[in-house]
């Protein structure tokens, strides 16, 4: 005879690390929204309907949603890139590349791609 505790439905509130994890997972919804928004933008561009798209994008609720989405996607990207060394073990002639260099490489690539996109669009 043994005792099995009931399922704890508020488990994610018990530890800070659990809460950060759940927040990171929930921000995936905003990543999906950002992808949909980008597809809608490209579709409007292809159809020559950009003015109508900007009118819609300028409505208060879309603006508010995108401000929240920007914060959520940034949080998701930062936490995701910080976790990358766990899945990427790189050895160069026996020397293991330290985590900070992998994280730094990821952030540098992110900044470089962002700068390239800004340069193209400007």
């Amino acid at each position: 005879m043994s005792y099995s505790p009931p399922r704890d439905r508020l488990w994610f509130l018990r530890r800070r690390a659990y809460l950060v994890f759940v927040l990171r997972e929930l921000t995936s919804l905003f990543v999906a929204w950002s992808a949909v928004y980008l597809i809608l933008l490209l579709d409007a561009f292809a159809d020559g309907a950009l003015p109508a798209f900007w009118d819609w994008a300028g409505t208060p609720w879309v603006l508010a949603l995108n401000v929240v989405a920007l914060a959520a996607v940034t949080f998701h990207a930062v936490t995701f890139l910080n976790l990358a060394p766990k899945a990427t073990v790189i050895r160069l002639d026996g020397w293991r590349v330290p985590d900070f260099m992998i994280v730094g490489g990821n952030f540098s690539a992110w900044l470089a791609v962002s700068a390239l996109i800004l340069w193209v669009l400007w």
Partner: protein
Amino acid sequence: MILRVSRYRPGVDAEPVFQDYEVPDRDDWAILDALNHIKDTVDGTLSFRWSCRMGICGSCGMTVNGEPKLTCGTFLTDFTGPVTVEPLRGFAVIRDLVVDIDPFLANLSKVTPWLVREGEEPASEFAQTPEQLEAYKQYSMCINCMLCYSACPVYVLNPDFLGPAAIALAQRYNLDSRDMGDRFDVLSSEEGVWGCTFVGECTSACPKHVDPAEAIQRYKLTAALRSVLPFSRRRS
């Protein structure tokens, strides 16, 4: 110092209850020393597992103030107020602080945690280079203390999940140059590495710095490559 200990006496208690014990607040005492003091001088009915007292055997894992800890390596001086001691979370409680470890042992055996060889017996010992040793040494430090299981919300919510230590030990053999086994079918399943949502608390809880989260994420990459590249073998 007050030790607030979870008690569960089968047939007596419907569910665990807390019992307070006053123990000497000694600088050199670990929680395990305080528990042994209670058992030896105050209440001989208190039940808990322990053996080596030096972080090797992995027997004395418990939940101390909400955190999975080896009680032999957690000292009274780490705390100021009452210290709560409970059984490891994620496991059924057999009595007081003793949990049922059979589900863990069953998961462990699924990953064939030993060197698998094919063909003829070797004529001499297998020599390994320092690099070959280094490839798996970190994962070989696991002492099966189950703290990582207790810290993992995925395992606590879904006991079918293979779990951090079993996967880390599978990687310990996968990365061993002497091993010829293939654990792909067990590891690359919903209950295997793909059940992991990468909370990362298994690594935080590990007292031996095994880093099970890393082992799991690395095998996800291996499993994904093998799924995409059917001609690739396990050492890809």
